[in-house]
């Protein structure tokens, strides 16, 4: 149980992952932990390849706020301001900054976004 103001409150963020079939999976993400790691620890199966914030296989989209307010993606090796402005985040290298709702399986959409902005991305 989480109590307002308790140390636990400050040490984790409540992230709701929304799947393409509208199913929702809540995940508690400890401070400083990557969202993908926490989701996998919770037994969820999500796509990923490089685990270094490059290949965008794990791409997701923040639903409830500007992406840069919800997820810190500084650990990603290739992540652009335009990605954040469009709401995209990379779960493998993204740490939540607050409670948030995130739509997963967004790799195809992020590839389209990168192409539209003439930004590099794997195409396969």
């Amino acid at each position, binding site marked *: 149980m989480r109590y307002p103001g308790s140390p636990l409150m400050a040490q984790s963020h409540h992230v709701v992952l929304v799947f393409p079939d509208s199913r929702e999976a809540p995940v508690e993400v400890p401070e400083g932990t990557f969202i993908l790691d926490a989701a996998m620890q919770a037994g969820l199966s999500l796509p990923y*390849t490089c685990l270094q914030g490059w290949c965008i296989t794990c791409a997701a989209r923040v639903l409830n706020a500007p992406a840069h307010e919800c997820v810190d993606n500084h650990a990603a090796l*290739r992540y652009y301001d335009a990605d954040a402005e469009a709401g995209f985040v990379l779960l493998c290298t993204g740490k939540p900054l607050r409670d948030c709702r995130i739509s997963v399986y967004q790799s195809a959409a992020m590839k389209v976004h990168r192409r539209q902005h003439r930004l590099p991305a794997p*195409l*396969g």
Partner: protein
Amino acid sequence: MTNKPHASGRVPVGDISQRVGVEQLELRGVDVAALREKLIDAAGAEFTTYYYYTILRMWLAGNEDYKEICEDARLEDRAHFEFVTPRIYELGGGIPRDIRDFADRAGCPDAYLPDNPNAEKILTVLLEAERCAIRTWSEVCDLTFGKDPRTYDIASRILQEEVEHEAWFIELLAKERGEGPRPSGHFRRGEPGEAPYSKNHPFYNP
């Protein structure tokens, strides 16, 4: 009328605009266009890794044992690029005309020389590059298993070597970090870049 069931098919006699080698994959459920794109991303990663490993190897100066092993991985990654690229063309695709486009779409991160490089940092970059390659080729194996034996064979041979590379770098990193031995279980290659799985084919693969 022939009674040989494989003597003809959907591709008309003499038609060079289509490939039976592609048609048969599609009939077995392979999304050939998607597979082709994934192979180009993977080939781009092998090529860029070969390039960046050249720099990393240089900076392992003084660690001659590490340098030799990095050289094996470097040359074998080049062999992987050589090995998979013909398959992309067979599937009706090709690699980008501009090498910048090729590097941009590589499926794994650029293996940059780390800031203030030392052996441990360089070995960490090498290790993570191999791990990305393992995940990539495992995915290609999954996409082709039981449906596209030719691509599967290429991917699985490359995967064999990437798994060995990971084991090498774990062994060296354990030593460098003083964490005690974590043996790879392997001895040295016969020749630099021997690529025992991806270069033992009878066709030309320099």
